[in-house]
């Protein structure tokens, strides 16, 4: 059995989630929101099934190449968006977050990424692969939500001047971003840095080698440390905070994609 049809179905559902999400800002709000949310759950279930099928078929963790990793990242993002919607209400941010999911799923289904199952090289045969990558990508999913919310914050900035209703909406974006970083930062720290170091010390005998992928994770992490401290101690909210969260996530993306294609190092599996 092949997971790809399931992923395509979830892709289509996610497009509908996004469209009905946008519809809720025009048509009857409550009805479209409900439809959009139910579709999101349905899509998530289908994609989870796809993930399971892939794991069983390949016999290893479902994030060992680009195709699998982006799929897992998008699955994590969906999970995070649903959690945020239930806990905090995303309001206007909802459909734009699904725009991100649609972009990720477009990458997953594009023919650019090879989809065949390849056996694992000896260094990847470890349960630390599961822990390191899944926790890191889950953390990055939160950071992705902060990224979208921060862009929305900046975009809303132009129209909200003097309008208290719009300003409140804008502040909600700032709050979403902060909450996402507050959840994503500990996970990223644990997955990328701590589990990464433990695994490296098992596989390569040194926990830190200043390999480009390691350094770029560190850079990403330092950006979010900067985000937290400038906010907490210097009271930077809003615009400057949003900029740091955006650059931080771009650094995470560079760690994920750029390092593999542009810089060479030990982490050249994916």
């Amino acid at each position: 059995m092949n997971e790809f049809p399931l992923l395509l179905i979830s892709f289509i559902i996610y497009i509908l989630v996004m469209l009905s999400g946008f519809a809720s800002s025009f048509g009857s709000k409550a009805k479209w929101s409900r439809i959009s949310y139910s579709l999101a759950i349905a899509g998530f279930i289908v994609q989870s099934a796809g993930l399971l099928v892939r794991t069983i078929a390949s016999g290893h963790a479902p994030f060992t190449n680009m195709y699998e990793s982006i799929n897992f990242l998008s699955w994590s993002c969906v999970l995070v968006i649903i959690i945020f919607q239930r806990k905090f209400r995303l309001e206007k941010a909802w459909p734009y977050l699904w725009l991100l999911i649609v972009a990720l799923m477009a990458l997953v289904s594009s023919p650019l990424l090879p989809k065949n199952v390849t056996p694992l090289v000896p260094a990847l045969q470890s349960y630390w692969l599961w822990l390191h990558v899944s926790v890191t990508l889950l953390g990055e999913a939160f950071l992705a939500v902060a990224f979208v919310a921060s862009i929305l914050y900046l975009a809303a900035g132009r129209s909200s001047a003097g309008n208290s209703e719009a300003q409140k909406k804008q502040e909600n974006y700032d709050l979403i971003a902060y909450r996402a970083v507050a959840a994503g930062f500990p996970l990223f720290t644990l997955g990328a840095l701590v589990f990464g170091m433990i695994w490296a010390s098992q596989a390569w005998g040194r926990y830190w080698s200043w390999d480009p992928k390691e350094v770029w994770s560190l850079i990403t992490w330092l950006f979010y440390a900067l985000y937290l401290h400038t906010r907490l101690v210097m009271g930077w909210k809003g615009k400057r905070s949003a900029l740091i969260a955006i650059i931080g996530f771009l650094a995470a993306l560079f760690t994920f994609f750029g390092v593999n294609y542009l810089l060479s190092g030990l982490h050249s599996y994916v």
Partner: protein
Amino acid sequence: MIKFLSSIRLAIVLLILIIILSVIGTLIPQGEQPGFYQNYFPRWSGLILSLQLDHLFRSPLFLSVAFLFLLNILFCSLRQLPAKFKQLRGPIKFTPTGGQPVRDRKLASDLSDWLMVSPDSLLRALREKHYNVKIKEANGQKILIAQKDRSGLFGPEIVHLGLIIIIIGGLISALFSQRIELALTEGQTVDLPGQSFSLRLDQFTTDYYPDGSVKSWKSMVSILEKDQVKKQKTVEVNHPLKYDGLNFFQMSYGFDWDRTKVELEIKGGGSTARGLTLNVGEKFQLEPGLTLNLLDFIPDFELDEGSRPASRSAEANNPAALVEVTKDRRPVYLGWLFYYHPELNQVQREPDLELEISLKKFEAPLFSGLEAASDPGLNLVWLGCALLFLGLLACFYLNYRQIVIGLKPGEKPVFSAHSRHNQTTFYQELERLLEVRPDSAINSDRKNEGKTK
């Protein structure tokens, strides 16, 4: 000086500086020869080499920034601590800082009743919500201090302490860790410098997937102490062997080409073709007075810049053997024999010598590349990581909350309430607890920028 070292502005400057240096460290290839930088970065090579950006992460520049950062975290956390302990103890005067007289009549009288007449119901309600409650009494004043998730207050300090420990552990690793590379063929034993034991490779195997790619390398090894086997284990990638402070890792494998066994086919000289198996460096008497000498073997033959034979790689891509034949100690035949390209065999020989030699087979023993490492900083790093993560959980998931109620007979009660995070949810909680909207009755919002409101 202390003020400068503990300032958050310095922390932000240093964070940005470390980010910039790290980016540079991934853009400039690290650890190359000076000539490399002169070739590829002619404009910048002077700067790169003088600032030692060719090994940036060990350069004095980077290390001093990191050291300053270490001091910064240390002093900053130390400076925060006294205030935090003070906060934990709670106010000693009946007017807490930031506290306000309660304006709402009902809440005021409720609070007075609770505290002066029957504190039990309030205490029970607070304790049910897992508040830690203290009541201080002095000169007729009463102060109630209720706190929840108190370790949340120290989240940042735990995080920072974790970081300090990780950095110190990292420094110890950088200065004192040792690595020894070992290349062992089956049956070989090595003594480990500075240790009382030695390591023997008993067996080395490689498993393959059906598609031919490598599945695993397994080195079965024994630890020997005075010829006694102390421990046996199969070392694999991701499964190191620990013994007496040393860790043994499976790092690589390869062929020991210096110990290649070579089979030559020899024709001519009157006799029929025959095969001959020799080790590199070995001699063989073909017939009285005629000696064949296997001088050298190269797995991947090429001519280097000085036109000298050399090996391009350690793989058997173009194996070649250097063979000499002497007649009464006088060389009569000398040349390289190629395994894949016998037509290219380059041989100088005496014209009347009818000798055809070709390279038929070669076999080198496989060695297992193991690395023995000791790292005295390792445990500190793990300790620091644990603190770092626990501290982060405390920062973001343990929401320190404090309620202070001060009461002096004949005066309105004074009330303050704040939480590190989520002021709104905290107020909702208080509302249920006191059955009055506290934010309408009082106004106790601490400066809480950057927090979720």
